[in-house]
């Protein structure tokens, strides 16, 4: 198969940001022989804004303060990923105010707690040298690199002014903390490829230097800034060597951070962020309380993290396994017995045989549905686009209408069939509906059903020529699909790098796909991704 490299249509408006060229639509070429490019031409490097979870987790790691649901600049998902949006968007005027409020809230809480402030400051602020020492240590953690002398002096002056104005040495610590957390060096991740040249070929770019690598590894795996061990490894120059880098990423993937990475990746891949506030009609779905969406999201994320981290389940088996972590509310959707100590406790259940795999976890049918109805089209689009990396063309201008339910058209299957009689609609719907119709046994909140409008549901379906009888068959077809593994590689790469992979990175994607098809383990994929040439090399700053 040929490697397709075309550039999407871009209106060249004022300041148009460039859309990266694509690699391929769906199935990758074999990564062997002639199809494997010799070199990597890395994508542009640049600034990434900390996402809300990254900000909150980093502040907590730095100060010990949990800011809870404080208002922050909202994250924007582009091309399905907040990480991609964070490399494109910036901080609004409102965001500046919100970050200021949040920084002072964290700093004030920190200095109000005597034990905590002693611990974080590490010195007595009445000592002349304390501010400088604190700013160096805290600054290195917050900005993920050592501060220059000029930077230390700049913030020392702020601390001293605060101390003398307010007559309180701890106010110096408070304002230094609040200030360092408002700096663009904290709020953004400047990863600019500050290392040496990455090769001789044209467009070889540069390497990310040790400090930049510390950041990239930490945010990819732990979704927060680097810990001291990672920073020390950077200071020792270990993160630009294969052995040193591998040691660190294996350490993190073996720690609690692995849960964070898997949860973050699947939250974006499945686009579950909408679920907690997704409108659901409680008259149609009595189970749809205000808390159900959030519980479904948490249940699915716990489940995939358990599979990937605790059990090292091969990725294809995610689509056939039948266990799940549920609380009482989610157990009720499963119609499963719940024995947890409290309704909010999550416990592991084995779902009954009507379900099989991730696609039948109620979070997925609930997320890809309307407030009052299912949507085979949305579900099929999700499987094809998010899980298999296939493009669905934009709907035509006149998208026609979906006939109302009637005695002749009782279920969505018949109604969508009528819609597809319009040839303008059939082309795309044929790519989505036969997938989604096999999930029709799961209603808009993911409960199992056998009838719609009094008529039995026909759950047969088809995926790229593979027919099946029901959702369980769909799960097996997805598990065996030739694009499944490469698509996960691409999605993990998007999640980790903050951009849609470019043609120049095909070598990295193909090598990672070979490796992932071999191991099938997501934690190993994360390790190899961090070790890959694409992840470690930088194009010119965007």
């Amino acid at each position, binding site marked *: 198969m040929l490697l397709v490299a075309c550039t999407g249509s871009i209106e060249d408006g004022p300041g148009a940001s460039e*859309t990266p060229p694509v690699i391929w639509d769906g199935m990758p070429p074999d990564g062997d022989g002639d199809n494997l490019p010799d070199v990597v031409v890395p994508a542009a490097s640049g600034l990434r804004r900390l996402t809300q979870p990254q900000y909150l987790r980093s502040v907590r790691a730095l100060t010990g303060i949990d800011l809870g649901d404080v208002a922050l600049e909202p994250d924007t998902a582009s091309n399905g990923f907040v990480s991609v949006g964070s490399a494109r968007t*910036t901080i609004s005027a409102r965001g500046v105010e919100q970050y200021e409020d949040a920084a002072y809230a964290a700093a004030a809480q920190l200095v109000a707690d005597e034990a905590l402030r002693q611990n974080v400051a590490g010195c007595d602020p009445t000592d002349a040298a304390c501010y400088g020492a604190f700013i160096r240590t805290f600054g290195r953690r917050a900005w993920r690199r050592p501060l220059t002398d000029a930077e230390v002096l700049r913030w020392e002056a702020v601390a001293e002014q605060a101390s003398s104005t307010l007559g309180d040495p701890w106010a110096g610590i408070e304002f230094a903390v609040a*200030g360092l957390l408002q700096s663009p060096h904290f709020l953004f991740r400047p990863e600019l490829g500050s290392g040496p040249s990455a090769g001789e070929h044209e467009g070889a770019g540069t390497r990310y230097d040790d400090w930049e690598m510390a950041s990239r590894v930490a945010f990819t795996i732990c979704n927060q800034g680097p810990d001291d061990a990672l920073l020390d490894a950077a200071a020792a120059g270990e993160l630009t060597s294969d052995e040193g880098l591998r040691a660190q990423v294996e350490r993190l993937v073996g720690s609690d951070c692995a849960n964070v990475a898997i949860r973050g990746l699947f939250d974006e891949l499945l686009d579950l962020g909408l679920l907690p*506030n997704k*409108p659901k009609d409680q008259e149609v779905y009595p189970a749809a309380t205000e808390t159900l969406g959030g519980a479904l999201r948490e249940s699915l994320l716990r489940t995939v993290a358990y599979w990937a981290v605790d059990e090292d389940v091969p990725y294809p088996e995610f689509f056939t396994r039948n266990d799940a972590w549920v609380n009482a509310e989610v157990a009720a959707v499963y119609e499963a017995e719940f024995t947890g100590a409290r309704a909010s406790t999550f416990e592991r259940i084995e779902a009954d045989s009507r379900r099989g795999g991730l696609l039948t976890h109620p979070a997925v049918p609930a997320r890809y549905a309307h*407030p009052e109805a299912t949507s085979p089209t949305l579900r099929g689009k999700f499987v094809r686009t998010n899980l298999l990396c296939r493009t669905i063309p934009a709907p035509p201008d006149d998208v026609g209408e979906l006939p109302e339910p009637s005695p002749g058209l009782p279920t969505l299957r018949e109604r969508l069939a009528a819609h597809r009689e319009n040839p303008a609609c059939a082309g795309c719907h044929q790519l989505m509906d036969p997938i989604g119709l096999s999930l029709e046994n799961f209603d808009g909140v993911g409960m199992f059903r056998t009838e719609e409008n009094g008529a039995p549901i026909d759950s047969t379906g088809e995926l790229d020529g593979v027919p099946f009888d029901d959702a369980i068959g769909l799960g097996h077809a997805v598990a065996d699909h030739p694009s499944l593994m490469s698509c996960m590689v691409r999605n993990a790469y998007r999640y980790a790098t903050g951009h849609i992979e470019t043609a120049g990175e095909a070598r990295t994607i193909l090598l990672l796909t070979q490796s992932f098809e071999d191991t099938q383990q997501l934690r190993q994929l994360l390790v190899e991704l961090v070790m890959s040439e694409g992840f470690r090399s930088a194009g010119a700053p965007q």
Partner: protein
Amino acid sequence: MSRLKPRLKRGHFRSQPMKRRTLLRGSALGVAIGVPALNIMLGENGDALAQGEMLPKRFGVFFWGNGNRPDQWTPGTTGADYPLSPSLQPLAPVKDYVSVITGMNVMTGNERGHHAGTVGILSGAPMISQDPMGANFASTFSAPSIDQVVARAMDAPTSFRSLEYGISDTAPGSEGTTLKYLSHNGPDDVNPPEYSPRALFNRVFGAGFVNPGETPEVDPRLALRRSVLDAVMEDAADLRRRLGTVDRRRLDQHLTGIRALEERIALLETMPDRPLLASCAAPGTPEESYGRDALLLRNEVMSGVIAMALACDQTRVFSNQFSGSVANNRYPDTSAGHHGLTHDEGGDQPQVQAITRFIVDRFADLMMALQSVEEGDGTLLDRCVVLGSTDTSDARAHSLRDFPILIGGRGGGALRPGVHHRADGENTTKALLTCLQALGLPFDEFGVAGGRVTEAVTEVMS
């Protein structure tokens, strides 16, 4: 009653922008004087402002998702005494304050349903597609949205250059900035809306807001906060040197926000005399929450907060993303989400029509909130220009033809409200240029590529 000299403590003005601000005081600035106006400029009873001319003009955008039913929208006749159509019935109480423009087309291309119309109507420029194959589609604006064009051109010395809020937060979140945000400074550069009335209230009338006539003590922490922001800006200057052009623009936008915050803090420290804005009084604190579905109530409370933010001259530009493009939230007495209904409901789509009417009713609520504030010899609405529109006309067809456009307010006399103007086949950007000119801003053309126009809609101007 009024002091003859402002109590400006110039020593506190450390940054250039603040000096510039003071210079703008009282100087001619387009249509509006520099405000906060000084007491010295008011008459003995503060009634100089009441003459009308010196009151600033304001601009707002009211945007909803998923279009209209053109057959139910277009009034039967044109001109001043037109009959309200079924969709426009809710405008009855404010009919004399709103002009209706029909028949125009968005001419910036229809590359992608909902996305193209949103960008076209709000900016007069084509959208930017971010469409790598094998991934979800995304898009963004190529040019600033009209609210930011106005805010930049006005450059008013208000506490906030603009205020953004929204009512229903159910637009798709993963398709880039276009659907999720109304207000854009440029590509991927947005001003996110506030969805909580309490949060909007706190932002405008919370800590630091001073009612006219009050003189609170200056908190010594204010100067420290400014020192912190100064240091942050020095950090940013170091960083900026290492960046590429795209990232420089992103960082510069961030710096713009930092400067705005620093100016606002400086204003709190110096406590310059506020003008006797007779109608300014902080509104009551909104509830913590109104529930997910209370669109009517939340819109009403937000309208009240924003009206007072204008009356207190905290800003002169606002936008309300009432509902985003493709928003699929539920409305009272309907069987499905809004976007779903536009595609799935058959026939004349009575439910879609009911939703459109409900939304027009909320636009009317905003008009009435602005009208309820007396200002000078009229009301706030007399000084406003409010653009109301959506992302498509007939949403089932993702049509950009015969676009629904409302222009509310009198624009300080520049607008001729209360008419229906039919402009078959004309460019919707003309409505944007009309707003700019009604506000007295120096634009004789507007828009990009197919969206570019050189004429306003004179039929709705006086």
